[in-house]
């Protein structure tokens, strides 16, 4: 790890001990030798970075693939005893670097704890291990007539506990809220090795400070989630997807507010601008109509409890977009048509990375919907001033924007990584001025840490640090993230 922006981690590393052969032997004895990876750089490398990008890499000294809560507890006890840093890791699909082992030490991978333990129809919950892929959970509960409403765009890869750690959002937040809304209970191992059982199969609780809510969104800095009780919704009615092509962003944004005010149940409302659409449609080899003329596309999913209401709904929403200047509105009703449309949105990140492996996907600011046009204008202005290309997409109804910026050929990758984050810092300052925040769903990790710390008052930060100390007095859990050290 190098580069001034991210600081030198040597000083941070010095606070911790390294894994000696004796500690490694103890670790293997505690969790089984087959669950410990050490001394094999090829095997360790897969755990050295996440989707924040290849510029942000830091090798772990060992990886432990825990099989159960006891393993997690044993690892934390050992780490506490010897003061070894531990970085919990889900699927590594995070975009803020939270799963990167900044100080080496142990990466605690949840990949083997991937069972769906129970689907409880009466209480409408599923009990799952942390390493269950979100989409697998969705599919399993759907067979029982339920919906798990968390829907990060990484649903095909991300783990449920990763969703908890980042309070993941995604494409259905406008209708169902983010991950926090879907978590009813957590089993958490704190750094001392103690197992906490928080929440449960209940939906009401005025029973002291909610430690569970503190864990959600804490990005692996307070405890390691070993079991999750998720809320299940009744399976929704039929859905239809509309794709509206707009000549400019303003008319698209204006349409969003109007569509939501109709009261027609909107499940998703995604914005894709021209650049992001061009790159992705090329990648998935599915050209979109009007792709050359439109500056922005809205992908709107609506729900209806009967075919008639659904038809009525999509006609109203579609006509509203047309009245508001849309060039054309496409309707995808069948599974095949809908998959074709959503394929474009879901492959966006991959397409961007294929187009430019150094592109930065970490922009994640949130502003009030009314401020979206100004935010978009500021993003484009800032990119233009710097002479860099930017694609803008986002969960627009939530005011959550993901500007994606591409590395100019002249810039070196490390210089670019730093440059990209300073660019986002400037944009975050704009978002804060407009009444927003710097991250809606990716989290802070360490990529967004400097601007996060800068944006909060000393008083707020001191309370947060106090919370961190209460859980993790030695600071061994995911050091250098969120609050720093």
């Amino acid at each position, binding site marked *: 790890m190098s580069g001034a922006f991210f600081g030198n981690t040597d000083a941070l590393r010095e606070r911790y001990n390294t894994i000696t052969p004796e500690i490694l032997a103890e670790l293997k004895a505690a969790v089984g030798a087959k669950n410990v990876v050490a001394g094999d750089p090829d095997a360790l490398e897969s755990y050295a970075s996440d989707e924040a990008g290849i510029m942000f890499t830091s090798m772990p000294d060992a990886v432990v693939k825990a099989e159960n809560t006891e393993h997690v507890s044993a690892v934390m006890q050992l780490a506490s005893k010897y003061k070894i840093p531990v970085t919990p890791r889900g699927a590594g699909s995070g975009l803020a670097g939270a799963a990167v082992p900044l100080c080496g030490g142990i990466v605690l991978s949840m990949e083997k704890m991937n069972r769906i333990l129970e689907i409880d129809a009466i209480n409408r919950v599923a009990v799952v291990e942390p390493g269950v892929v979100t989409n697998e959970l969705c599919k399993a509960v759907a067979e029982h007539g339920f919906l798990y409403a968390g829907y990060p765009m990484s649903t095909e890869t991300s783990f449920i506990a990763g969703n908890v750690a980042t309070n993941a959002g995604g494409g259905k937040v406008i209708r169902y809220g983010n991950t926090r809304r879907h978590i009813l209970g957590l089993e958490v191992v704190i750094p001392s090795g103690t197992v906490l059982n928080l929440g449960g199969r209940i939906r009401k609780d005025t029973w002291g400070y909610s430690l569970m809510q503190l864990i959600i969104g804490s990005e692996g800095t307070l405890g390691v989630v070993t079991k999750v009780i998720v809320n299940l919704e009744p399976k929704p009615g039929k859905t239809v997807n509309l794709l509206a092509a707009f000549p400019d962003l303003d008319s698209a944004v204006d349409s969003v507010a109007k569509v939501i005010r109709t009261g027609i149940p909107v499940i998703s409302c995604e914005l894709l601008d021209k650049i992001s659409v061009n790159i992705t449609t090329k990648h998935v080899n*599915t050209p979109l109509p009007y792709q050359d003329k439109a500056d922005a596309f809205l992908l709107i999913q609506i729900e209806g409890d009967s075919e008639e209401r659904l038809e009525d709904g999509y006609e109203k929403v579609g006509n509203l977009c047309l009245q508001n200047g849309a060039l054309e509105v496409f309707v995808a009703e069948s599974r*095949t048509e809908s998959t074709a449309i959503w394929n474009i949105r879901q492959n966006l990140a991959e397409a961007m990375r294929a187009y430019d492996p150094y592109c930065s996907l970490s922009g994640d600011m949130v502003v009030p919907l009314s401020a979206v046009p100004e935010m978009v204008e500021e993003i484009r202005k800032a990119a233009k001033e710097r002479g860099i290309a930017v694609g803008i997409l986002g969960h627009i109804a939530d005011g959550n924007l993901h500007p994606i910026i591409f590395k100019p050929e002249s810039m070196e990758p490390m210089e670019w990584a730093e440059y990209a984050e300073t660019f986002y810092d400037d944009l975050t300052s704009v978002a804060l001025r407009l009444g927003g925040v710097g991250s809606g769903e990716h989290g802070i990790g360490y990529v967004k840490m400097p601007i996060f710390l800068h944006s909060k008052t000393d008083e707020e930060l001191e309370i947060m640090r106090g919370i961190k100390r209460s859980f993790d007095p030695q600071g061994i859990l995911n050091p250098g993230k969120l609050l720093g050290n």
Partner: protein
Amino acid sequence: MRVAVLVKQVPATENVKIDETTGTMIREGVEAELNPLDLHAVEEAVRLKERFEGTEVVVISMGPPQAKKAVKAAIAMGCDRGVLLSDRKFAGSDTLATARTLAAGLVHEGGFDLALSGERATDGETGQVGPAVGRILDMSALTFVSEVESVGAGTIVVRRAVEGGHERVEAPLPAMLSVVKEINVPRLCTLGGKIRAKKAEIPVVGAAELTIPEEHLGLAGSPTKVVRVSYPQITRKGKKLSASDDLDTALDAIRGLLADRGAV
């Protein structure tokens, strides 16, 4: 030019489930959609309409009354009109009975210069109905069509995807084409198209209106019998070797395995 598109409504699922006692597909509780591979036939037909002025595209399906929705989906993409062949007497048709019924449907609609179908339906997976209709009506039956190069002067030139490459075929009209998905990217329906399809009347044609002998219809006209349903066993006899402890031993084991199979 008159162009017909033959379409089928299929369950919208990747996992078609079979009733093991009757040997028929379980359709209850499964959403239905226009056969995804037929979308390419519809798209090609609409493109022909755009290419050749005065072309009429008629979509024809055989199925239960609710299959009207699949016909409407094709109209939403740009077909001019649609017909549903529906009658209790058609129930239980195999590919032969279906082809005979559809062929009679084409005759009922006045005959066509060209008829198109998808390569196969995603439920039955036979790929027989399209070409069978072509043979019954003595049309040129062209399968696995990946490009329509030209149509005119009583002939059609197409490219067919065959093993190892492509075949360029010139055939006399009328012709029945079953198209592969590589032929095009089906268009998305516009809101306008959807509204037009919603308003479209889909006439239902029954057995009485078709010139087809009773004994060729439905289950009675179907020589295919499902005797038994079985599932292929998926077995993987893999052996996992760990190289983390002792690479040389693992490499020796691999050499041994390859030698046993005569690979080295």
